[in-house]
């Protein structure tokens, strides 16, 4: 799922792991491309959830980005961004 092609590369961290994204990509898309799809947990069962709607509706991509809870599908990656899962899927 890596993304070939042009575009300036940026680095950010996800749960402490350093990852690369293309400038302009959303946090959710960059994580998806890097193989991280389970981002959130279901409210009752705790089952893993991942980006589903890609447009700010489902909230299954909610992450802490620089400490603030946001829809990661609607936030562009910036250099040095610190992204964390509030609850890590096992």
């Amino acid at each position, binding site marked *: 799922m890596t993304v070939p092609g042009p575009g300036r590369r940026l680095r950010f961290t996800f749960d402490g792991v350093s990852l690369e994204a293309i400038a*302009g990509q959303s946090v959710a*898309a960059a994580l998806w491309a890097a193989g991280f799809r*389970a981002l959130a947990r279901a409210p009752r069962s705790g089952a893993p959830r991942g980006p589903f709607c890609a447009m700010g509706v489902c909230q299954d991509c909610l992450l802490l980005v620089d400490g603030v809870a946001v829809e990661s599908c609607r936030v562009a990656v910036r250099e040095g961004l610190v992204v964390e899962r509030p609850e890590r899927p096992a």
Partner: protein
Amino acid sequence: MSEYDLAVVGGGPAGAAAAIEAAGLGLRCLLFDEGSDAGGQVYRPPAFAAATGGPDAAAGAALRAGLAGSAVERAFGHRVWFAGPAAEAAGFELQAVGPEGNRRVTARALLAAAGTSERVFPCAGWTLPGVTGLAAATILLKSQKVLPGRRVVVAGCGPLLPLVAVGILELGGAVAALVDLNGPADWLAALPGLAARPDLALRGLGWLARLRRAGVPLYTRWGVRAVSGREAVEAVEIGPVEADWRPSRQRPALRIEADALCLGHGLLPASELTRLLGAAHAYRPEAGGWLPVLDEAGRTSLPLLYAAGDGARLLGAGAAPLAGRLAALAAARDLGRLSEAAFAQRAAPLRRRLRRAARFGTAMARLCTPRPGLVEGLGADAVACRCEELTRGELGAAIAAGAGSLAALKAATRCGMGPCGGRLCNATAHALLAAAGRSAAEIGAPSARPPLRPVPLAALTGSFDYADVPIRELSPR
């Protein structure tokens, strides 16, 4: 006095064209969109240089250039979360969260051009990571250049099926199966409408040829039965369906190894704004569901409130700018800025073109008109409401116990009260109620209340009751 003559919510083809038309007629016009630029879903501003090309990219660039050359005041990066009658002047008050926090404006007239979200009917296992909407997949593919998976099942109905499948091939992925609820007869029935846009029909044929060349297995009148996997999608079970899209009992299912499923059943008009303001709505399943009642120029039942684009009627991207411009003309007319004669003269050709464009869009939307078997064939354990994790069985029990409307079902189960605001479960809840014999009038339109869209806590400043914001709680580990 209102700050603006016209506020437009949504900078897709409908809202952007409306704003340009209105500003051209001398109206002080403010255009809101939560995106970084105009273009909407179909002409999304490319996220980066690599994500360009194709006829949609050119149309999007033209739309953005037209807007840049106009007198329209643009408020991008703003998510409108409140609309109501203005307290201090005739007209409307809007509130939007943007980069600088909350912004409150007043406008004499208001156009809702909020487009659509996606309708996905549930199946067992559809909450696993790796399952995305079909329209969601177009976002990943077109503006993010990310593959949904290496081996993807593409399933559901409508024109996004071949679009997504071809998009996956173009980025180097494999399509494990294309699974279409519609059969050849359903597509044949759409032909007269397709003839209204031979260019788009040809594009569709080109996609099909591309899929055939790549050897993509095509299953028509088939549907997804279940998705399985531990932490993410590992396999998708598909099988034939009956004419009403219920899983066929006679014929066996097929298990396909895949790491992603793109699943979608058409688009869902975002009519929250007009519902929140109390305009009259009617249930029109073939045009998207609960929609504002409109006259030929996009006027709702309330004075100076208009609606256009796919958020008002699923007529497609070709029709959206025409409907938007008509609504702008109507607003100018109703604000006394255009004579009746000038209005009639400008509106007539737009109406003609709109009728033609609508034929194509309507044919496409009809391919996705929900059929009852989709939910009736759903197992009791399948999650029907993602936010609250309610199963079909739980909703069914509440309906059997007497919940006969969306509102009653919501009160009984919390279905629709989660952060999605009901966008992901209302269609399912409606279908389950209809399957239990309730009429659309009994089921009722989903209630709309602020915030219209989820508003991140951190973005809000000023006087606002945090308890009203239905964003999901994040509990630290």
